[in-house]
């Protein structure tokens, strides 16, 4: 067992633990913190995979911006401990079973898949940030520009929806 494998398992355990914690925490703020744990663990994994830029963006945008927004909203709405209702008959045991079945099936299929997946992930720095930026601004300029509209829409939506009613 190499060091990187150990690191992988540690990070993987962290991520899965965070995800489980997200599920089991009663208070949304705790869930949010659990999610941040997952994200940080994932950033670690990205580093392990040699995707430094993505790792950085993961921390900055996801962990920094998005999750802060979450926490902010939780505070804003003064959300308390989750109310534990069980109105949905389907989302109880059947839901659990089905979700497990699906996950199990996906995971099993991937694990047994003979495609590229089986190849060992290449470590190291095949991706430079420069290449990435070239790709974004050349090959993928159209979606990139579209993304700007997307953000515009998001802003617009936030304004329209969250705006207080005018008197």
């Amino acid at each position, binding site marked *: 067992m190499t060091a990187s494998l150990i690191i992988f398992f540690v990070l993987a355990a962290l991520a899965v633990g965070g995800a489980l914690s997200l599920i089991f925490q009663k208070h949304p703020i705790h869930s949010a913190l659990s999610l941040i744990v997952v994200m940080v663990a994932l950033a670690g994994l990205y580093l392990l995979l040699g995707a430094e830029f993505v790792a950085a963006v993961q921390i900055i945008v996801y962990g920094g911006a998005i999750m802060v927004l979450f926490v902010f909203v939780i505070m804003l709405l003064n959300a308390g401990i989750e109310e534990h209702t069980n109105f949905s008959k389907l989302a109880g045991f059947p839901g659990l079973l089905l979700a497990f079945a699906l996950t199990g099936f996906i995971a099993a299929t991937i694990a047994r898949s003979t495609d590229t997946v089986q190849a060992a992930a290449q470590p190291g720095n095949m991706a430079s940030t420069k290449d990435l930026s070239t790709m974004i601004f050349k090959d993928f300029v159209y979606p990139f520009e579209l993304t700007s509209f997307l953000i515009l829409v998001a802003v*617009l939506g936030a304004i*329209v*929806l969250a705006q207080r009613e005018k008197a």
Partner: protein
Amino acid sequence: MFPRTDDLLRALPELIWCGFGMLAMLLQPFVRSRHFFTILALVGAIGGTAAAFVAGATPGEGFYGLIQSDVFSFFFRLLVGLVAVLVVLAADSYLERENLPFAEFYALLLFATAGMGVLASARELLTAFIGLELSSISSYILAGFRRDSTKSSEASLKYFLLGSFATAFFLYGIALVYGATGTTNLSRMDDADPGSNLLKLGLSLILIGIGFKVAAAPFQIWTPDVYEGAPTPVTALFSAGPKAAAFALLLRIFASVPAATHFWFWAFWVLAALTMFAGNLGALLQTNVKRLLAYSSIAHAGYILVAFAAVTFMANDLNGGATPAYAAVLFYLLSYALVKIGAFTIVSEIGGWGEKNLTLDDYAGLAQRQPVAAAALSLYLLSLLGLPVTAGFFGKFYIFKAAVNSHLIWLAVLMAINSIIGAYYYLRVIVVMYMREGSAEAMAAPAVRFPVAVNVVLTVTAIGTVYFGLFPNQVLNFILQPNLIAR
């Protein structure tokens, strides 16, 4: 690194839609006139639609294979453009009645349209994803546009949560496909190994994502709630636009990834059967007309999926055997969009302030109070039912034909059974309008005069429905080109 002109031309409709959307946002603080924004949106919508001709005139790949301008995308851009124009017209009086901010509404509408246009022209899953999100996020907002209405916000929330949920599946599917083929560009997947489990799984998950958008059962589950809660013109948009765009993406995947057709045949078979039944059975007992039409949308998605099953069956026939099945889908979407927008527009107008009059009881005796509206709604319903002399009849006919062509006799029979079930609730609305007397106060109330814009919508959709019901030729011949969709 400014893009080449041709690339811009090929994406011109979306750019125009987005541009006008932005313009509306920019002018919002300065102009208070409602009519100004309506006209602006109208100009934008029509401009984008017109630009589809420009894009259509410069066929080929754009932006390094991210988008494709061909007859297919031309058709869908025209379709979503038409939808946008009609919804702008239909929304005008609604927004005023409900006292909603129109600049934002129109901007979002145009952005959503642009997203659909992107979906229709995308040849790269990334582009498709962005297009999907662009239209989806706009749709989430539009669904909750009546902020003070609990129903509207609930619709928005449900749509948003479940939509994102499904998008995650869609994305995961893309990731797996990427893993299996090493690319997210559809045009480079034609040699994908059909035996790959990863590819299979990926395509399944993509299908879940798209299935959600087109409201295929059991992903249809959000549809009635969202359609009911959303402002009615928005519902009209939902039922016609995003659905068409998502179907366009599906067709594009079919055309580009032969491997997909191997996997998807039975999936479509099952989805089609489930969807038809889910929609029609669910609608059977509805008393809320808006919700009834929502269920009807599900049913119709099911019918279209029948054609998809036929497409998957025939797709490997390189001699153009699948062309009629493609044509069936396209024609159906067109006829369906016309009808649904017309129907929802009437529902919107009859609904009145606060969308109060939505139940069947409110429609009782409509034929006497508002004969024209009743006649128009009957026409739409008959088209949905698939009675001759309406576009819906030909739509259904072509789907039947495609199904029988592909030896999907049992699916055709299931569809036939569903048509009968469907006939029941469509007729129920007609029956209520024509054969039942309205309540005394309803009959005493003065007839609602429809605004001009609404009348334009009704005229266009009604004439279109009848015209395509009598002379489907032009459209069909146009669709039936051998180079309909770039491979």
